[in-house]
């Protein structure tokens, strides 16, 4: 009886863990400039699970916390990071965040640029991307940028699956979500795109 109860509990837990993330619709497309000056689009990342954040380099308080949290996940993803999972951090301060500034910011946070791009663009491009992801930002007179901290997870087929608001989210939960999307990718034959 005890064994049956335990088995039932295991099944329930596993079923919950395997519950697929919702499908919010196609992730809004964008083409922006990386820290190396190359142009990259979301479509180029098709086949990988993408975590998309909005930050700016001179942010002194909250952005570094978010970037540090993502850097921690980069490590925990191990060999999945890069080939299967890609991070993209888009600046909300394109006037100041040139590719060089973003490259310096990336190095300062220990970002592995084989799986992480820091993106900038013309102010109008950034405005459009932020708007399409539901990110609000506004530059203050002092020069800092008030913005929504919204991290979006995009699956390997370019579908927006879940968004995390703020920086106090549970990194374990995001890791579970990323791994769940990696499993989906494998089931869909996504491994082909690694070759």
């Amino acid at each position, binding site marked *: 009886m005890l064994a049956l109860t335990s088995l039932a509990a295991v099944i329930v837990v596993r079923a919950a863990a395997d519950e697929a993330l919702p*499908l919010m619709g196609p992730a809004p497309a964008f083409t922006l400039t990386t820290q190396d000056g190359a142009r990259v689009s979301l479509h180029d990342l098709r086949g990988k699970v993408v975590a998309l954040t909005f930050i700016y380099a001179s942010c002194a308080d909250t952005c570094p916390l978010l970037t540090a949290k993502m850097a921690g996940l980069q490590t925990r993803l191990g060999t999945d990071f890069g080939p299967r999972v890609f991070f993209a951090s888009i600046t909300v301060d394109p006037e100041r965040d040139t590719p060089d500034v973003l490259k310096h910011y990336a190095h300062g946070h220990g970002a592995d640029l084989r799986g992480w791009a820091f993106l900038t663009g013309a102010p109008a491009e950034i405005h459009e991307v932020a708007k399409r992801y539901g990110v609000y*930002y506004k530059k203050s007179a002092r020069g800092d940028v008030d913005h929504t901290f*919204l991290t979006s997870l995009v699956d390997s087929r370019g579908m927006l699956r*879940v968004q995390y608001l703020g920086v106090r989210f549970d990194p374990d*939960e995001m890791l579970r979500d990323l791994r769940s999307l990696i499993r*989906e990718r*494998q089931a869909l034959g996504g491994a082909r795109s690694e070759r």
Partner: protein
Amino acid sequence: MITRRELLRGVTGVVGGLAWRPGRVLAEPSPETTRLRLYHSPSICTAPQYIVEGLLKADGFSEIKYVKTTVAGISKLLASGGVDVSLHFVAPLLIQLDAGDPVTVLGGVHPGCFELFGADRVRVIRDLNGKTVAITELGQPAHVFLSTMLAHVGLDPHKDVKFVEHPAAECKQLLAEGKVDAYLAFPPDTQELRARKIGHVVVNSTVDRPWSQYFCCMAAGHREFVRKHPIATKRALRAILKATDICALEPERAARALVDGGFTSRYDYALGTMKDVPYNKWRVYDPEDSLRFYGLRLHEARMVKSAPQKLIAQGTDWRFVNELKKELKS
């Protein structure tokens, strides 16, 4: 190498989600309207809808209008279609549903915000038996909430308490002068009464059970707006719930936005409200439980005729909030 278990997981996923085939996946369409009207009343526990403008713009709304009203005027605005989607208090919403107003409740936003302030002679709710309570208007949220509290402790709000109507500023003054026995206040009045040490808190719905266990403020829309504009409704609710998270996660930023936006004048009271009100519960509490709890109390107080289940069946639509609970994590 993919293990059998991983393969099964994948298969389950593919079969379970028909929409996973790219050809069958539909983009979330553009909202049916880019115009949204909300209200602006003196109460600031409804802060999410006051700091939501930028988020609404990010979600596709280009014409956002705030209609000024009193707290007592919110029900009329919502029923008449003067606002499209807005926050409103749970107890007055139930009275509206019972009256057949074309309103659809969309989800809970936060529990607790109102506080019952009493004179020294009032220590518990039952002490209000035979006493005088100041309210701004019969039927307005403070009167309705207080009636549910009276009913909960076995008092009859129609007979056991004398309600006197005065403007809010006078209500506070009457309590300060000891000319009334109690006053039920909403933020920022709650902050002000505490700061000025007027009366004492008899019930604080942010922490005192059972009130703290149910939503006080809920999101609702005009029924026709929700029916004709489901995409816009979901986007408006998404923006409001994001704003609710911001109130919880960044109270200083939210309080500053309230003051800068002209929705309230005192930053300290606004910040106190952001820190006191549990804005982090919209994913946790069940909105139906809140409607049922307050519906039963209002039924006991003979302020609604219908059973809660009927009101829930005819006046709610949880589709959007249920989707958003999965899509928006924090």
